[in-house]
């Protein structure tokens, strides 16, 4: 990461796009204007990041630049010039020539980027053979060299994709892209869905290769922190436009567009003394009806009368910003804060008043009226183990070739009533299995789990529904967790009927109260919606409301924010914190994300390959870790030297006042 080519502006642009517009024209739907007039250029050897929330058009832009758009998407206007060739309307055949001549793409997480019925060797044969006639031995040699560049052994050649771990597959995909001898590589979310430590390793590999091979790279990601740490320049995209284009260090320390500032405020350093997180209320606009004026205005705490007009690009140093208000001093409202020692989420800020769906407002209303949990009881795990029979071990994970895998190996822990405990670790650490055993979805192989006096591990299947009135789980995927055919009101209502047995007016009142509690106001409006009519964050709120319908003593939340945009993370975490305070329920928070663990938990347990390697108060575990694995986890977080050094910017103490 340290070896970076010298400054960029002198280089001739390798790729330029001007006036680029992309339209999706789905059959039977209104056309969606996904990219709306983008002018960009990437110089030789530059590393550029492209960030934004999902739905802002960043992947579409990346695909358009690589000419990979397919119907119903098409480039409606503008040009893309690669290496002084206009590729905007190039036919398939000439395009193949361009690809062999150095335009490569690495797709999202690489998980499905490889043909499942073809060995890795076959992939190399296809890619290398498409460029020139080669003997099998030559291909093998080249492939082995390429694999060694991405730190894989030659034996990988004989594997099928499903026999490789996610990180290995992504490395193979990178090696295949390198086989094109690329001059420009577009990385679309290269590390999403990978384990944190693997994520870090892949980013390091990309940076090293970039320095060695000297390709130019565009890294598309939703993770501003990751991109800032790895690139020279960052483009921030919103609603189909680039709203800010700056050198990475400059953006990290002084974002000019409120959207960039807000995205930056969604990042934080979990090891800092004081951790605060902002969020961006609302969601990106529907681009089938592009908004008038500034697209970000409805979500912006700075917006004023001028924002009704379309903003123009203002040049700032080597970059630019497209905002009427820039450059203003930017203070981003924070939703949740943790300071060393006992701490609490930020009391309701002005921000909540502006956006009615914000959790805090609704929770504040509901506060004191209901105490949901019955007398809480401690949850205790003693020497819990869980063995799984394996069919075949993934070669990377270092597990025995066949037989038993110990997912959880002798874990003892105690979650006191009303406490919030974090369970952190990489993939394969056993944290999810542990969560599933606690809610009774799996049975431990040995050891005991007790809630108060109840032996959870001895529960019979028919006793589980009663147990679930006391312990509820919030799952990772809010998209898969709701039946798409039922209104969310029905879904939550079922839980109310099942767990509380309410009918008639009582039922109706409870349903509305729950929607109100999770910040979906007005409740009548949201209860009638079908899941697909809600955003990811709203769906996760529904899932939480459903869990609350049981009035649980213990809430087990398994990565509740990992599938959501970072802009929503703070909202949901804030909601979880508030609910815990108001209901007295204890929270077991399972995550790989140390930052969110820091924000909502008091106690932290670090798991590695089924063992507890470290535990203690959250802030002390994170701030002075003692186990090497904890140190490694912390080191894997992309660090942005934002906050501390810059007094202005996003971090001031005062809860944001609308300007």
């Amino acid at each position, binding site marked *: 990461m340290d070896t970076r080519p010298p400054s960029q502006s002198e280089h001739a642009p390798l790729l330029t796009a001007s006036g680029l517009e992309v339209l999706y024209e789905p059959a039977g739907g209104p056309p969606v204007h996904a990219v709306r007039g983008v002018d960009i250029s990437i110089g030789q050897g530059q590393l550029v990041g492209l960030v934004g929330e999902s739905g802002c058009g960043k992947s579409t832009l990346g695909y358009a630049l690589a000419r990979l758009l397919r119907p119903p998407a098409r480039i409606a206007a503008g040009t893309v010039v690669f290496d002084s060739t206009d590729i905007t309307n190039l036919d398939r055949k000439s395009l193949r020539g361009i690809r062999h001549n150095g335009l490569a793409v690495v797709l999202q997480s690489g998980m499905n980027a490889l043909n499942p019925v073809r060995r890795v060797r076959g992939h190399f044969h296809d890619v290398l053979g498409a460029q020139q006639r080669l003997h099998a031995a030559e291909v093998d040699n080249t492939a082995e060299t390429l694999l060694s560049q991405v730190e894989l052994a030659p034996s990988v050649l004989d594997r*099928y994709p499903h026999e490789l771990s996610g990180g290995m597959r992504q490395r193979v995909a990178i090696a295949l*892209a390198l086989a094109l001898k690329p001059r420009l590589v577009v990385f679309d979310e290269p590390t999403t869905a990978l384990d944190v430590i693997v994520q870090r390793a892949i980013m390091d590999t990309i940076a090293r290769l970039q320095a060695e091979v000297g390709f130019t790279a565009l890294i598309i990601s939703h993770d501003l922190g990751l991109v800032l740490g790895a690139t020279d320049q960052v483009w921030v995209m919103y609603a189909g436009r680039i709203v800010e284009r700056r050198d990475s260090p400059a953006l990290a320390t002084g974002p000019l567009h409120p959207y960039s500032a807000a995205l930056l405020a969604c990042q934080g350093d979990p090891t800092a003394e004081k951790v605060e997180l902002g969020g961006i209320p609302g969601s990106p606009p529907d681009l089938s009806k592009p908004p008038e004026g500034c697209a970000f205005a409805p979500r912006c705490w700075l917006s004023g009368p001028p924002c009704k007009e379309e903003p123009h690009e203002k040049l700032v140093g080597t970059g630019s910003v497209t905002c009427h208000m820039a450059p203003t001093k930017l203070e981003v409202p924070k939703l949740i804060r943790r300071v060393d020692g006992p701490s609490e989420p930020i009391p309701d800020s002005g921000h909540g008043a502006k956006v009615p769906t914000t959790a805090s407002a609704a929770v504040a209303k509901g506060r004191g009226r209901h105490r949901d949990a019955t007398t809480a009881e401690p949850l205790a795990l003693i020497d819990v183990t869980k063995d799984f029979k394996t069919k075949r071990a993934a070669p990377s994970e270092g597990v025995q070739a066949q037989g038993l895998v110990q997912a959880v190996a002798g874990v003892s822990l105690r979650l006191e009533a009303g406490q919030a405990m974090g369970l952190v670790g990489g993939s394969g650490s056993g944290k999810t299995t542990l969560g599933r055993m606690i809610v009774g979805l799996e049975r431990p192989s040995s050891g005991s789990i007790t809630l108060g006096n109840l032996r959870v591990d001895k529960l019979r299947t028919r006793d589980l529904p009663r147990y679930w009135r006391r312990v509820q789980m919030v799952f990772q995927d809010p998209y898969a967790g709701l039946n798409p055919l039922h209104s969310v009101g029905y879904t939550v209502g079922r839980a109310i009927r099942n767990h509380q047995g309410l009918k008639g007016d009582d039922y109706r009142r409870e349903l509305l109260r729950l929607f109100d509690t999770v910040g979906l106001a007005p409740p009548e409006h949201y209860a009638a919606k079908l899941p697909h009519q809600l955003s990811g964050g709203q769906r996760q709120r529904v899932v939480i409301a459903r869990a609350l319908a049981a009035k649980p003593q213990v809430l087990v939340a398994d990565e509740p924010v990992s599938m959501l945009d970072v802009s929503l993370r703070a909202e949901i975490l804030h909601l979880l914190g508030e609910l815990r305070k108001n209901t007295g329920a204890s929270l077991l928070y399972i995550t790989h994300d140390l930052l969110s663990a820091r924000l909502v938990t008091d106690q932290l347990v670090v798991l590695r390959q089924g063992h507890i390697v470290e535990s203690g108060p959250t802030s002390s575990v994170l701030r002075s870790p003692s186990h090497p694995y904890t140190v490694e986890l912390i080191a894997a977080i992309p660090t942005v030297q934002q906050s501390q050094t810059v007094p202005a910017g996003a971090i001031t103490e005062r809860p944001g006042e609308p300007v």
Partner: protein
Amino acid sequence: MRYVLRRLPVLVITLWAAVTLNFLLPRLMPGTPAGAAVAKLAGQGSVSASQRRAIEVMLGVPHGSLASQYWQYLKAIAGGNFGISYTYFPEPVSKVIGAALPWTLALVGTVTVMAFVIGTLLGVLAAWKRGSIFDTAASVGCTFMAAFPYFWTALVLLYVFGFVAGWFPIRGGYSASVSPGWDWSFFVSALGHSVLPAFTILVSGLGGWVLGMRNNMMGVLGEDYIVFAEANGLSPRTVALRYAARNALLPGVTAFGMALGLVVGGSLLTEVVFGYPGIGYLLYNAVVNEDYPLMQALFLVITVSVLMANFVVDLIYGLLDPRVRR
């Protein structure tokens, strides 16, 4: 090899279950064939003791315990002895079936394979050229064709090409002027007789394969590995065949296995309409004439071939998809 060995016990157990059910089911029905025959005769007048005795000897009556009957039955099956057919008396059932089987295998088997191959290729092409005129024509045409009841297609073909135009023979497997044997005139005659039934089966089966493959292929074309292959500059042909079609084929293989298993059962209505001397026609006759030994043997043959076909396809699937191999 381990993959094969792991699947073998399942095959053996299902085979045993099929054989046993085939033994038990007729015995669960009330009455016996001899009883039924006697009752039929009794309707026309009184049945003398010797007549009754003769019928019982001819058709057989169960004697001994169920277990000993079961043992006898297993032994008989192992020796290929399925009894004597009533309809084709005194031919043994095994011989009757043996005569019909080649006809069905040749006609229905060939056409099933053809329908699968042609249909799949058309499906690949339709999906690859999605939205084109070919795609639209293929999709609409196949839906249209699949909507016809196939015996109706058979009757129309028979009327138009057999009766009105007189291009093809109307019924049978070969003309009366030739005798079955390995000679040219017989072959030509048999081929001519098979055209209309074959076309009927093809028309009725093709649409399903085309549409199925097209839909699978469309799904696969949306996968990341297709985009990635294209981004890596592979030729469209390689992407279409080695990446897209190769993966889209997998669900089709399972369906093909089932279709193959059903080949032995013949194409009942087609064979009946064309008077084709295959298993389907045989089954029809067996049912009409209450020919229990023939029926029972046919059921067994059909069940066993479905099981075997599925087993073989299971093995092939293992070859095609490394993910199920262990």
